[in-house]
């Protein structure tokens, strides 16, 4: 009788242990997530910044942009983006529409060094500059496809990448309709505009907004009446990029031309 019991119990224990150790496989994930959550809370909540009180967005007034490219340059310096013409968190495009309807677009080195003067022989009927950056979509396709949840949307509406989590599969880069993402050549993880989140939580403006000499970029709250962004959106007719894709961008353009995609 005793022998039988001895035989039976270990087997039951064994099965239990198998189940427990299988469950244990999931444990590191939960623990890491908890730890990371705490870290973020310490950084944001113990300080003066409460993400729940904010909702960020950006307005861009095409008519004000002079194509100096200081925004693209400042962004590279502020965020340590490799200074080569293949990786950009923000860039400026130049459009030339000719009489016959043909359109020429260029953005040499993302306009970090501005643009050279036009030498076109043909008559240009419209010409303008369009600053581009991550649209911090409310319905972000990049967040949807990330297999490990390394890219996410913050409470205050900014789309960020956790480089420690990112496995470098580049699905998010494929899913972004705006070409706003790239793989950092050194960290081998996905990178993109963060609205300079490290500055914003300290009450500062994003670098590109700060250096813009014509105030073509307007950064601010989307839900506070006193915000310059809300005023911009009240005073102008607004469009977003690729509205048909239903990504619901938080970057709003005024005076955007039909040629811009």
């Amino acid at each position: 009788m005793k022998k039988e019991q001895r035989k039976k119990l270990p087997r039951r224990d064994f099965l239990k242990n198998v189940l427990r150790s299988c469950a244990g496989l999931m444990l590191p994930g939960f623990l890491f997530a908890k730890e990371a959550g705490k870290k973020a809370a310490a950084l944001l909540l113990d300080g003066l910044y409460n993400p729940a009180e904010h909702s960020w967005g950006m307005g861009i007034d095409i008519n004000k942009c002079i194509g100096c490219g200081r925004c693209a340059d400042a962004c590279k310096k502020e965020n340590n983006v490799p200074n080569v013409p293949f990786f950009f968190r923000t860039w400026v495009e130049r459009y030339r529409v000719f009489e016959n309807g043909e359109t020429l677009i260029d953005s040499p080195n993302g306009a970090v060094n501005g643009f050279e003067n036009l030498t076109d022989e043909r008559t240009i009927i419209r010409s303008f500059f369009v600053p581009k950056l991550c649209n911090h979509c409310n319905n972000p396709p990049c967040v949807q496809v990330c297999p490990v949840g390394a890219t996410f949307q913050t409470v205050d509406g900014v789309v960020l990448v956790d480089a420690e989590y990112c496995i470098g599969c580049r699905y998010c880069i494929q899913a972004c309709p705006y070409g706003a993402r790239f793989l950092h050549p050194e960290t081998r993880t996905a990178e993109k505009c963060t609205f300079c989140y490290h500055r914003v939580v300290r009450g500062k403006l994003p670098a590109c907004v700060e250096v813009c000499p014509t105030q073509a970029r307007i950064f601010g709250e989307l839900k506070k009446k006193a915000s310059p962004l809300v005023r911009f959106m009240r005073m102008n007719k607004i469009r977003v990029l690729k509205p048909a894709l239903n990504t619901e961008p938080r970057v709003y353009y005024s005076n955007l031309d039909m040629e811009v995609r």
Partner: protein
Amino acid sequence: MEEIIQHLAPLLKEISGYIYPNEIELHWGILVVIYPYITGLVAGAFILASLVKVFNVEEVQPTYRISLLTALAFLFVAPLPLLAHLGHPEKSYEIFLTPNTNSAMAMFGFVYAWYLMAVLLLEVWFDYRESLILWSQHETGLRKWIHKILSLFSTDISEKAIKFDKKAVKIITIIGIPSAFLLHGYVGFIFGSIKANPWWSSVLMPIVFLFSAIVSGIALIMIIYMVVTPLRGKEIDMRCLNKLASYLFYIMIIDFSLECLDFIHRIYESEESIKILAQLVSGKLFVSLVVIQLLMGMILPLGAIAIVKIFNLPDELKKLIYFLAALLVQVGIFTTRWNVVVGGQLFSKSFSGLTTYKMTFFGLEGLLMSIFLLLLPFLILYILFKILPPWDEARVTG
């Protein structure tokens, strides 16, 4: 860093029109071409195997175990190209620990594990169990022990046990067919669900992937069967080969119709992206899409098999035509994957320009690695053939 700059700098000159500056680096290269190609072969080979068990197609019985082992060999290799292309392969386990349930890609690990563990390994085990026991009884030394261990030390070869094995195989196959559909349809979904990319974004994508998978799987089994049988000094079973060619023919017609439908649909709807896609197809993709995929990989083999079907040709000529057709189909399907994966990244999402893909030779994502990954399944298959001979005479003599 230096390496990447050297790789990307010359590409700046290859751009035509305007592309977003971040688009110069093409992100999914040859490795991501190989991945759907290999999973397609897995799904195709398995579906061929299931014809015998579920639909009782007696003629293709000689290829049943070959198909199973081929599917298994290729399935072992399937995740390797994905792993090699990651920026951080060492963190890939996070897909299992904290998967994002909204992500199509996050499901890969689970679909793969399900297919490997619950379907293929189980089916192979139940199908081989009796043979393993019989073999180990007559063998000595290492082989005896390998077969004993593989049979998990089961010894029961009573009539009841064998009957159960057969039933199990049948049930697993019935579960396996939708699983194989899931495995490859899901790969199609990874591409088909990207609304940012009009070349990929299509509800037909999983279905086209699936039928091209079956096509490539049948063609591969034909090639393996026709190479291995003479090497073993045996006669090729023409009844089996004719049947395989028939299946290949009919599935190719479905596949071809689906691709035509996709093509016509795109032209007829003529959406925003049509101009840049037309530029792509008539320019950078012309050779790989129209010449290789369509003419060489589809129309030529279809015509060849049709000729065999219409005219009463001698067996030797039939074999030659079948073999060449099956080879062309392989090239065609590989190019199909190439045209989807690489083709979808050759045009800018601004729809205003085209870019270029330059493959490297060395390195994790280079050509050398790709060739290795394509040969590896054949090496595994060779070992599997040695350990688990799939031939009929091995089954009979025990």
